[in-house]
């Protein structure tokens, strides 16, 4: 009965997501599409909440919808007015691809339904529960991320670093904003400390409850984005060496922890269970700093003046 009634909510959400997705994918106006996509992200975050995935809901709200939305809007601003965004494949191609994709979807759906008959993945969840006490944290998702599958997370930080380096190599950042009018400035003025506070809170709480480095980093980055949007004159990025150190710190500390475990026990990232909690916090701390730096720099869309070491040959 209970689950049955909730199904109405589920149905509403499903329909909403479908409508929003189709709208975001095929709206005639590009800006319209981007806004629909941001709303889509919001609904997705709700869906994560509904599916008991608060960690992901947090990340989706902060990164997937929030920051990605800001990025997309910034990209829209870069667009020249004349750009034609409605170009798409000819109809026959569209239909052909549609047919192919439909076939794939049917196949996948069939397979998925087949799976739903008898699922086998509970044992692994049980193993996680049984092993949780050795991981140094009590939030199972954090345990998986930073202990059981810490290597994935290290690589994920590296992916972020690669994207950052890529973005930094593509040219200078967007021109800074003008100072905001008092109204917005006031809003920004009290939002920033709140964001920083919330970020710190999420980082701390991550060990035993949903939250952690990514969500925290995203919030800190959002604070910096806000400051940038407000055109704050006093908002200065650190100099090039420090900025670079900040960007690689998360990855570097993570790697160094890995190396020291490698030297100690011969196994990469085998955290001694007594120290695991502390090491995870250490890693998360630096990871948060790096993630925040990376997300913010990435939002700038190019390297800030303080990124480059002094050039001998000027850039073309």
């Amino acid at each position, binding site marked *: 009965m209970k689950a049955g009634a909730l199904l109405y909510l589920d149905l509403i959400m499903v329909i909403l997501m479908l409508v929003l997705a189709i709208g975001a994918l095929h709206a005639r106006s590009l800006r319209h599409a981007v806004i629909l996509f941001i709303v889509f992200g919001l609904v997705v975050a709700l869906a994560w909440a509904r599916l008991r995935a608060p960690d992901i809901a947090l990340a989706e709200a902060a990164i997937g919808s929030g920051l990605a939305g800001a990025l997309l809007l910034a990209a829209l601003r870069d667009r020249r007015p004349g750009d034609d965004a409605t170009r798409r494949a000819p109809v026959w191609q569209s239909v052909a691809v549609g047919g192919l994709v439909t076939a*794939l979807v049917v*196949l*996948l759906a*069939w*397979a*998925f339904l*087949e*799976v739903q008959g008898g*699922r*086998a*993945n*509970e044992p*692994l969840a049980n*193993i*996680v529960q049984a*092993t949780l006490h050795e991981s140094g944290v009590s939030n199972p998702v954090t345990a998986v991320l930073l*202990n*059981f*599958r*810490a*290597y*994935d997370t290290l*690589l*994920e930080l*590296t*992916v972020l*670093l*690669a*994207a950052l*380096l*890529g973005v*930094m*190599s*593509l*040219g200078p950042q967007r021109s800074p904003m003008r100072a905001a009018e008092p109204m917005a400035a006031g809003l920004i003025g009290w939002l920033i400390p709140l964001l920083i506070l919330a970020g710190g809170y999420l980082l701390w709480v991550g060990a035993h409850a949903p939250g952690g480095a990514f969500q925290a980093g995203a919030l800190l980055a959002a604070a910096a984005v806000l400051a940038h949007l407000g055109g704050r004159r006093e908002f200065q990025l650190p100099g090039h*060496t420090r900025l*670079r*150190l900040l*960007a*690689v710190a998360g*990855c*570097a500390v993570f*790697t160094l922890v*890995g*190396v020291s475990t*490698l030297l100690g*026990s*011969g*196994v*990469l*990232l*085998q*955290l001694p269970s007594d120290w695991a909690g502390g090491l995870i916090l250490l890693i998360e701390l630096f990871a948060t700093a790096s993630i925040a730096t990376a997300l913010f720099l990435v939002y700038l869309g190019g390297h800030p003046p303080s990124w*480059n*070491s002094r*050039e*001998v*040959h000027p*850039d*073309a």
Partner: protein
Amino acid sequence: MNESMSLTIILPLLGALLAAAWPRRGVFIGITAVLLSGLAVGWLWFSLLADGPSHQALGGWDPGLGIRLQVDALSILMLSMTALVALAVSVYASHYFTRRSQAERFWPLWLLMIAALNGLFLAGDLFNLYVTLELLSLSAVALTALGGKRAGIAAALRYLMIGLLGSMGYLAGVALLYSAFGTLDMQQVAAQTGDDPVSQAALIVMTAGLLLKSALFPLHFWLPPAHSNAPAPVSAGLSALVVKAGFYLVLRLWTEVFPDTLSTQGVTLVAVLGGGAILWGSWQALQAERLKLLAAYSTVAQLGYLFVALALFMSAPPGVARELLFGALVLMALTHAFAKSSLFLAIGVIQHRAGHDRIAELDGTAQRLPATTFAIALAGVALIGLPPSGAFLGKWRLLYSAISLDQWLLVVVIGIGSLLAAAYVFRVLGHAFGRSALSVQAIHSVHEEWPALLLALTATLLLGFGSAWIWPFLEHMA
């Protein structure tokens, strides 16, 4: 013992971090890191030869809960290929970038790419492979755009989109597999796959995604612009190593994770596409007006050979001939890596010295750049599949299998492909003999020329005459 496995990934990663933090020391850090990770691969050789194929649960958690790294003959060969090519390309790159800003950007990304490749060849976990694939494609994309030219950026953008689409397809398969089998470990998944709908659906989407990433015809359209517009060392890395990653994964998935799932139709389809790649890629290479585009299309064609070989391998009945074909397939992949990286480096030298890479205006280059021309010739020999290259042995086995399996159409396709390859290679070499002496600047430093030459010699002489051990090695260390 097992430290070496992690080190092959960690060392280039550390190097990348250092190079990102201290860009001024990029060249030193870069070369050192590549050298050290090469040494780690060497160490891994020792432990592999001593202990046989092994795996390691990272973090000390059982596979399933944790992530497994694994090493066997195939992965160590791929790692060695990466190490050697990366070393030669790195030496070349240390002279290639004339603007310091470009050099500073190159090294961290280049090292990340190598870390990703090493990680990919060692991964034993399906989701970890997704992350490594993304690391690989993001660093490769960033490197592609490094030249800063409009065409390069456009190519990089397209490359990125395709890469993302491909990895999403792959991830969809992983999600399905996890939902069905409750594990991400390749061996544990492999124990449960069969010809059920889940395995089939997962196989189809994962393969489709990877074929897109490895640019199998007709999904190759993004490759030529990306490979031909990137800076020369990057092109070398992309064409020699990065496309191999997708192929390697398809190979692993087909042979190890889904051995009972693959249908004959699927194999036939890939064989047909591979054949199409051979013909179309070679034909386009013949039409190309620029050397780099020629080399890029040649990669499309060579991937076709690899996939045709893979399809034949999958459809061959178990037995000696099948094992021999497997070795040949690996040898062809290795030869192509060395030959193609050599070709791109040599083209880079020409581009630097002549100021362009238009084939029609290459006359006289041979006289000015003999070592480079020789490298192109040797690399070309390997691409055609003529002796004394490793590709000759590979092609012999490939044709042998095609004939044994009565695949006469493939025999014809491979034959035509070889002739087309000869045509495009000698179209370039013919110009190299031409008389008109152009203003080709003399080489400043021999370091610029010898990496290409060494790579070409590896592809031809070393792999042609010294690769008989690969077969028993693959058999005993699988």
